[in-house]
């Protein structure tokens, strides 16, 4: 039997990816923005303590917040056509996973969008290294968790 690699088809994946790229590209063309999502969480803390970010990061605070607002709105537009999104994943996994991913992304200076999209598109070796590491670690983690029944 042939293994089904794409049981849900590929078109929504591909078109979604192309639209993501278009968003990244337009922000770059319009205003030079190289936009990853995870920096948002660091710049938000600068409202509490200015020393939280270096100067460059602080200068990007406003547009990073607009980027995040845009991203939330994008999800909202999708909901208007397709209905609300939901998940069955337990709350503690979301919270703990968010914490570990947030810490890791800020240590590595980027996440799936910062390294995965912007970094690879900037032909950065550091981003290729980051993507390979987090993909391999995530594959192992997910399958080990499933094996032990979490």
């Amino acid at each position, binding site marked *: 039997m042939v293994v089904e690699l*794409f*049981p*849900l088809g590929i078109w*929504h994946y591909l078109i*979604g*990816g*192309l639209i*993501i*790229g278009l*968003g*990244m*590209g*337009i922000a770059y063309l*319009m*205003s*030079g923005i190289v*936009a990853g999502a*995870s920096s*948002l*969480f*660091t710049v938000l803390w600068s409202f509490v303590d200015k020393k*939280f970010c270096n100067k460059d990061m602080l200068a990007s605070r406003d547009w*990073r917040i607009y*980027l*995040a607002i845009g*991203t*939330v*709105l*994008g*999800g909202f537009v*999708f*909901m208007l056509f397709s209905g609300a999104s*939901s*998940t069955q994943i337990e709350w503690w*996994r*979301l*919270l*703990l*996973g*968010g*914490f570990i*991913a*947030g*810490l*890791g992304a800020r*240590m*590595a200076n980027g*996440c*799936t*969008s910062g390294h995965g*999209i912007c970094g690879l*598109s900037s032909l*950065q070796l550091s981003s290729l*290294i*980051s993507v390979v*590491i987090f993909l391999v670690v*995530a594959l192992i*983690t*997910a*399958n080990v968790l499933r094996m032990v029944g979490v």
Partner: protein
Amino acid sequence: MKALAALIGGLLFGIGLALSGMIVPEVILSFLYLEDLGLLFVLGGAVVVTLLFYQLVPRLRKKSLDGHEFGTKRVSIDKRLVFGSALFGVGWALSGVCPGPALAGLGAGNFAMGFVLVGMLAGAYVEKFFR
């Protein structure tokens, strides 16, 4: 115009993340279980388009449409990159959510994404002690 560019870019980013299923943790997990490899098309499609912009636009113009320098993504290769990326992989596999989809998912009415966002905010705070 920087705000408008970020807003439009973010809007398309969010729509693309939602349309491709990235905002559904179960889709991410089915990829990590190697049951549905569709996410490779999301990453591939996004990188091909972004790559075209990043590589072509600076050859055609000196500055962005609103007169800003083009940004660059430069991160040094060190222990922080390796260890941070590995941690990110663990967290991503645990929740099935990365930062962009946490935002887009919340916008799409999945309020459970609030747990992820609170976790990520806390993680970004704790990162301060590892500098």
